[in-house]
């Protein structure tokens, strides 16, 4: 079950790009200097890094390799 849940989270995260891709909009400037779509990308990137961390360390498929 874990693999399906993680797979689904990965796909949703990937598709989240559609929602962080607000075409034609750059306001508000986050912190006065980061255009909104640019900020959304930062968040997306950090979410993806967190996802990678969870998969690698909490659901490691290759744990047996250390044996």
């Amino acid at each position, binding site marked *: 079950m*874990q*693999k399906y849940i*993680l*797979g689904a989270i*990965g796909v949703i995260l*990937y598709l989240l*790009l*559609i929602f962080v*891709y*607000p*075409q*034609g*909009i*750059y306001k508000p*400037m986050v912190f*006065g*200097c*980061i*255009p909104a*779509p*640019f900020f959304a*990308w*930062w968040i*997306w*990137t950090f979410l*993806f*890094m967190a*996802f*990678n*961390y969870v*998969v*690698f*360390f909490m*659901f*490691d*498929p*290759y*744990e*047996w*390799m*250390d*044996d």
Partner: protein
Amino acid sequence: MDIVQIWVSLILAVTVMGYLGYIAYRKTGDGVEEFVLQSRTLGLVAGFFTVTATLFSALSYFGIMGWYYSNGIGTWVLVADVAVLGLYIYIFGARIWYLSRKYGFLSLTDYMKDRYESAAVSSFASLILLTALTVYVGAQFRGAGITLQTLSNNQISFAAGAIFLAIIVASYTAAGGFRAVIWTDVFQGALMYTAIIVVTFFCVNMLGGFAATMKNVETTAPELLSLPGKYNRFPLPWVFSTITIFSLGNFVMPQMTQRIIAMKSRKSLKLLGVWIALGAVVIFGAAFYISMAARTCFPNLAEPEAAYPAMLTILPTWLAIFAMLGIICATLTTCDSIVLTISSMVFKDFYEAIILKNKAAPDKMLTKIIRFTVPSVVILALLVAWYGPASIIELLVDIVFPLTFLVTPIYVGGLFWKGGTRTGALSSMVTSVILLIVLKLLRINFMGIDAAVPTFLLGCIIFYVVSRFTKPVSKETIVRHFGDFEQRVKTIL
């Protein structure tokens, strides 16, 4: 900038790298594995620097900044691919890492030869990758040439700059092998990160801070801050296809595989997969603000890829020199990695596989082959720098990554699917390469999606269908490549 200052700083930097290369040469032991993989002892910190420094090349300083400058924030798509690449580095990479340690594979194509029991498969894959990588090195030399020409106000010609750096790369790579490449990558990578961060703050401060810089752009060119960008350059289908192509293309790059299989532990590989995106955030985040500053200071540059060198001309001399060294380092780190990778592929996939008819060559031959290969690659790359497409990013987006992407079905398919056969792999590569060339020449894409994506899908289908109806590889090979995984993996895949 004064030409004497440029040459003195270049020579100083080259001396440091030469010294590092010399120490690495002294510490390099005997054997091919030591020369091309540092005996598989690459740690996390060195791994992070060498992988990110190899990824962020002249493309980051010229192509990316040129795109930010002319098309706006949609350029970040090339960063998103690095986060996805991190996932592949562990999920796919751990398999090749494990198999390489167990069976002694030295490169991606070395693995393919064993997996498909075919030197033809590895040699053809090598041919595709060598073509892509030679173009990649050519793009780096062009970046280096542009930098020195612009900063010296044409006192150093494009040709002199490119040739100087080509000679430096060829020298220390041929002398010290992988260890020299890694040591110099750590030095160059640290310098590259420091330089771009310092330059960013300096450029932005000159214009009154981050908010003032963005206010200027908002007033003069708001389309650069919006999506899908000026002239609809970044439509969503293109964004998805580019993330897919670049993340898989980067993973399949032989120099990436070389670093994955050289990692000393699985934990280091995991952490590399997580943290690699941070490097992209720093480099490409800084590139955005420098480009926006360039847009304010030089709003009408005829050549967008000159945005960064143009900004350097208004910085204090000490900082401009520091920044120039950052660019040169980014260029060198990518070139040295690729040149070494190409050399080891030529040695294994052409010299041993074809000339020696699959017999192992003595270790001492490696040095001779490398001495022959390195200058040859460098000369070909210089020809690309002179006669290739005008834009660095076009070289990479249109040629390098689509080509490497086409090897993905047989690489990743070979790792996860037992049914892949020699004929299936060859058919997939030959058909998809021909189709890609035709589509690119005719400039055909599908609903905004790059031609490489349908070509890749066709390659997957051909690989699967042909493999189903052709002679499978031997049971012994299947057991060697999949036995451990089937018995022991608590798989989530």
